[in-house]
């Protein structure tokens, strides 16, 4: 386990160095102020993070976490329901298939008209884009539970809520976490877009605003902050997986 961890650490370090080298090469070859050197950027990042950047980043991350949380809970609940009840499946699944491929990002103006200019339309936009993945993951997870496993839980005389707790939720949890990992990228991208409109705090706003003010160093610090935040959330999801899906990890190590 210890060896695994240090191995992972060196891998992370290696990829950081790789990105830095690539960035630096880009900086010296392109020779434009739009790509400041890594060194300058990091110095600037450290300088502006406590007072400025952290506020923007905090606002953005709050929105992402809220949107992810709502999508996971609501999406999974709908998914479990569709997985268990054939009637719900025949009603909801076609709806999901119809709505999922629609580029809902275009609905931002409508959401802003309906729900004002605050956090709500931004969070809602992310939710309506990523919730479908959670619904489908949960539904498929429930459907994949072997019939015999259901029998054996029933044969122990367990009640319905106990079945959900010990059979259904453990069955869908690994899928939900994988989906969270995949949806995270989409959530951050959508947020970046949404924060370009009628926003005063948010990393998307910060980056675009610095661009408009031709302050490329700070713009890049913003990009760096967003990337680091994404990385940290990824690690958090890994950590949660290690805690709640221990048994999956153990199986993999076999």
């Amino acid at each position, binding site marked *: 386990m210890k060896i695994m961890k240090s191995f992972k650490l060196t891998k992370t370090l290696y990829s950081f160095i790789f990105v830095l080298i690539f960035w630096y090469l880009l900086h010296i070859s392109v020779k434009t102020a739009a790509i400041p050197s890594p060194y300058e950027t990091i110095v600037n990042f450290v300088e502006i993070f406590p007072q400025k950047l952290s506020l923007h980043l905090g606002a953005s991350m709050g929105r992402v976490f809220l949107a992810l949380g709502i999508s996971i809970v609501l999406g999974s609940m709908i998914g479990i329901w569709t997985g268990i009840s054939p009637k719900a499946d025949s009603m909801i699944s076609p709806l999901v298939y119809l709505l999922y491929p629609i580029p809902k990002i275009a609905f931002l103006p409508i959401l802003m008209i309906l729900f004002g200019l605050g956090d709500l339309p931004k969070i809602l936009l992310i939710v309506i884009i990523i919730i479908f993945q959670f619904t489908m993951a949960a539904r498929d997870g429930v459907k994949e539970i*072997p019939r*015999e*496993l259901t*029998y*054996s*839980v*029933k*044969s*122990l*005389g*367990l*009640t319905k809520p*106990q079945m959900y707790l*010990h*059979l259904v939720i*453990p069955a869908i949890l690994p899928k939900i976490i994988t989906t969270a990992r995949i949806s995270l990228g989409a959530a951050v991208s959508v947020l970046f877009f949404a924060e370009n409109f009628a926003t005063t705090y948010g990393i998307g706003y910060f980056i675009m605003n610095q661009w408009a003010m031709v302050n490329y160093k700070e713009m890049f610090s913003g990009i760096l902050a967003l990337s680091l935040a994404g990385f940290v959330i990824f690690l958090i999801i890994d950590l949660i997986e290690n805690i709640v*899906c*221990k*048994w999956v990890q*153990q*199986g993999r190590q*076999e």
Partner: protein
Amino acid sequence: MTAQIVVKNLHKYFGKLEVLKGIDIEINKGEVICVIGPSGSGKSTFLRCLNRLEEPTDGEIVVDGETITAPGTDINKIRRHIGMVFQQFNLFPHLSAKQNIMMAPLELKIKNKKEAEEKALELLDRVGLSEKADVMPRQLSGGQQQRVAIARALAMEPDIMLFDEPTSALDPEMVGEVLAVMKELASMGMTMVVVTHEMGFARDAADRVIFMDEGIIMEEAVPEEMFTNPKNPRTSEFLNKVLTT
């Protein structure tokens, strides 16, 4: 003496297909019944009707004097007295061997944590897996998983145990260890209904053997008679096939 399980005129349809065509049987307390027969004969369906994992279409099942097919029966309560072991071991993948065994008694508040744990360790010892208490199912062999599954069913202190081809999914070298646990259980006076292809087990451990085919009980006899002198031509045909291969 009244029988512990009484099945009267049991019918089961899957859509239009009639899988059980009128089963009548009485099983006494402490009796070990082995149900044999070709696949598709309705053996497993019959077994699953006994704790209503399959809803009987028609007929009556009485367990310990209670008609479990009557409307309004709290089937969960009855299932707690009827342990069941399946072909696939069906352990909870997210719980250790010990936790698997403790789960039902704890959840149903039949035992407190300490009692449940003591019982689990005692049962693990009984199935010869004391040292595997904290191991996760994925790290156990098939035979070990099945023995944990038996222990899990026993943790509810059932009066009746149902086995649905408990050794069919096992590698051959692991069949023996599971059958040994079942034999011990039989010798302790547990009422058992075992659907099996292990003719050796049926011969050694059963009080009565039932041959099912096409949804009915074709023949029922003590093992001696069933295996040496079957009355029904279908029985001898089946036995010839399974005993020569």
